[in-house]
């Protein structure tokens, strides 16, 4: 309070870019308002009705004026469109080598999991200077992951994986809100994003409770659900090897090729028959729909991903060796 700015805190460079575009629109709007309201005000005063005056001259219109006042605003709008589209494109395509977080929304909390296995509820810790990619999943209804300080928002849709990313520049504690109405305590489904300097972040990472890393947890689930019995990792048999599958195109038996991303792996687990890998049979892999929790799925995916991870990993994921302690619920 006491802060009269019309801008929320700027926690990232992207926030500044959005504010600049917003300012451009504010200026254009101000000019339009001055023009329109100015004309109306002047006309209303200057041409106010005077008793006994003759009927006013009639104007039926002017092609030229119509052309001018449709074209010029439209051209200005094209500037808005292109500028907005450019920023949107940037905000929708995360760079390579991100620090990956996994966030699951459920009525009414945010569960956050780090690749190193740390877990938090309604709190997120990130370092400055590293792009952070958040994979969003929902256990129930639609939520929306909203961090005003980063000008970032993305709906969290059950049955989909959505991606949001940001790169914080300024240490601080920023609001995390749920922006899509999700039931009784929607307005309380909030939390905080703690942006720290990389050094502080390292300290934070090494302290605190954790289970095994997400890869370890995923590996455990991989045997627990019997995936190993079929997907022997380095051999090809009745089932495709998952080694070096993630991030590469997959040939399907109907001739299509799909990119193996998070959504594809998710679908392959929950509904294997939706897409069949070329050369393999339908109805071999069991349907896991409804059997694995959203968090378990994310761990499995991180594990599958690790099978084809390029050697260089983003710094913050390494952390000290982890003891497998506590299993996913």
């Amino acid at each position, binding site marked *: *309070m006491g802060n009269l700015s019309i*801008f929320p805190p700027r926690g990232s460079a992207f926030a500044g*870019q959005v504010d600049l*575009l917003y300012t451009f*629109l504010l200026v*254009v*709007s101000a000019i339009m*308002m001055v023009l*329109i*309201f100015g*004309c*109306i005000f002047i*006309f*209303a005063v200057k*041409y*106010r*009705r*005077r008793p006994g005056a003759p*009927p*006013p001259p*009639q*104007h*039926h*219109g002017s092609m030229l*004026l119509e052309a001018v*006042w*449709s074209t010029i*605003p*439209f051209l200005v*709008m094209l500037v*808005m*469109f292109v500028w*907005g589209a450019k*920023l*949107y*494109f940037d*905000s929708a395509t995360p760079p390579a080598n991100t620090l990956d977080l996994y966030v699951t929304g459920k*009525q009414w909390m945010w569960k956050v999991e780090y690749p190193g296995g740390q877990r938090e509820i309604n709190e997120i810790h990130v370092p400055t200077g590293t792009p952070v990619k958040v994979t969003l999943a929902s256990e*129930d*209804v*639609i939520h*929306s992951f*909203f961090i*005003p300080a980063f000008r*970032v*928002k*993305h709906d969290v*849709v*059950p*049955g*989909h994986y959505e991606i949001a990313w940001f790169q914080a520049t300024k240490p601080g504690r920023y*609001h995390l*809100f749920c922006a899509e*109405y*999700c*039931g*009784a305590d*929607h*307005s*309380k489904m909030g939390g905080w994003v703690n942006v720290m300097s990389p050094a502080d972040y390292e300290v934070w990472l090494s302290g605190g409770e954790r289970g095994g890393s997400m890869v370890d947890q995923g590996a455990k689930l991989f045997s627990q659900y019997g995936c190993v019995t079929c997907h022997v990792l380095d051999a090809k048999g009745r089932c495709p090897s998952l080694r070096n599958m993630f991030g590469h195109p997959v040939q399907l038996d109907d001739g299509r090729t799909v990119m193996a991303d998070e959504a594809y792996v998710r679908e392959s687990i929950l509904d294997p028959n939706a897409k069949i890998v070329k050369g393999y049979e339908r109805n071999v892999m069991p349907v896991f729909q409804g059997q694995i929790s959203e968090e378990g799925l994310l761990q499995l995916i991180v594990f599958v991903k690790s099978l084809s991870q390029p050697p260089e990993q983003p710094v913050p994921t390494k952390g000290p060796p982890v003891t497998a302690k506590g299993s996913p619920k």
Partner: protein
Amino acid sequence: MNITFEQPKIKESPNYLNIRYGWRSWLLTTDHKRIALLYLFSITAFFMIGGAFAVGMRLNLTSPNGLLFSPETYNKLFTMHGIIMIFFFLIPSIPAVLGNFLIPLMIGARDLAFPRINLLSWYLYIIGGIVAVAAVASGGVDTGWTFYAPFSTTYSNTHVIMTAVAVFVAGFSSILTGLNFIVTIHKMRAPGMTWFRLPLFVWSHYATSIIQVLGTPVVAITIVLLGLERLFHAGIFDPKLGGDPILFQHLFWFYSHPAVYIMILPGMGVISELVTCFSHKTVFGYGFVAFSSVAIAVLSFLVWGHHLFVSGQSMYAGLIFSLLSFMVAVPSAIKVFNWTATMYRGSISYDTPMLYAFGFIGLFTIGGLTGLFLATVAIDVHVTDTYFVVAHFHYTMVGGMVMAYLGGIHFWFPKITGRMYPEGWARFAALVVFVGFNLTFFPQFILGYLGMPRRYATYAPEFQSLNVLSSAGASILGVGYLIPMIYLAWAWNRGPRAPANPWGAKGLEWEKSPSPPPTFNFDEMPVVTENAYNYGAAPGATEAHG
């Protein structure tokens, strides 16, 4: 012998109001003017109900922790406020009241094409309304007026089905009214009333009707699917059953974006009438204003995806919808420019309806300009589902449509009732509404950009001052709406008699029909010989009003 003195009565000539009395003459009437009045009273009742919910919300929001209600109750308040205001007040407001009353009068017809269907529409509306009120009385509903799945299909344990039935039934009322208008405008125009002599009010209702007839069935189907999902777990929208929740949003907005134009086009039609009449000028760019209505109706079906920019539709779809949304702003801008140009060198009077027209242009311009912010994808990502969107649509729907509705009610009040309203009070109320409106909703733009999400029963403490400001404005706005209800009710019984054409306006309803009109509108069939708004010919005022 007993002598009684009676006030000398001026015998009223027979008109649609005094021709018959008794409740049957109203509830079984097929006269479009009487049906318009049935709508007038029923939508006013719904406006009061919806308004009461808003009062509750604004009170609650004066404290960050919620002053009065639990979050569950607050969620029901905003849901029922939205549903009542949109489906039971705003959508029927101008079309079903003023459109019903005026379209036959304006085109020189004795009634609408299907008078009985017109009555049926009102009954459907009332049935829908009663079901909605029953849903409220039995505990309410908490899905938001948007009914997003899977919350509405699987998780909410309130009266979703009952409310959905209410909206479904009211939707058919809207479809039938639209159908009636389209056929009437095509088939019942008086001799000489060519398409390009139609008042712009009729053009805008024509465009509105097209949307109602083509769009409303889609929302009806969507509601049926929602019911199937909720009752029988059909697996259409809920991912746990193999459905897709985004599909619901596509279906819902395919209707509901065009529906926002059902909620503004008729208002634009009213403003075209007001600006010409109170400037005593023919409208500038008649063809452009008329066709911009049609352009809006067509384009409005192509932009629904701008409500899904952050919900996971493909990025490229988002870009296309962004571009199309900018395009739909152009015809709206054209209208504003043409109204402004109409005033140029006019003879402008400041009667109450014109004050509302000024208010409309001001507020709608702000609503439209902020629409551009929302169409700019990168900005929308930040402000969608925040108070910025709430402010935007209140500027267009309340600042636009409700201002136009009030302006229209004042403008045609003499025609409808045969009486004049008190001008001083009316101007005062118009001013109060304008000030109260801006105080209520302008702070919400700032709140939204600062990041306060919408549909929040509680909020972060730094948002309190702007929320208190907004609530203070809302109390002024509320008073502004109550004053007209009081003096209009008074004037209906006691106001001075109105002549046939108190404003010196052009148009068959003013020039060829007395106030109030007889049941069949015209004593003799009018023949049209001139274009609309021919204010160049000496204005045909029968008498300047006091």
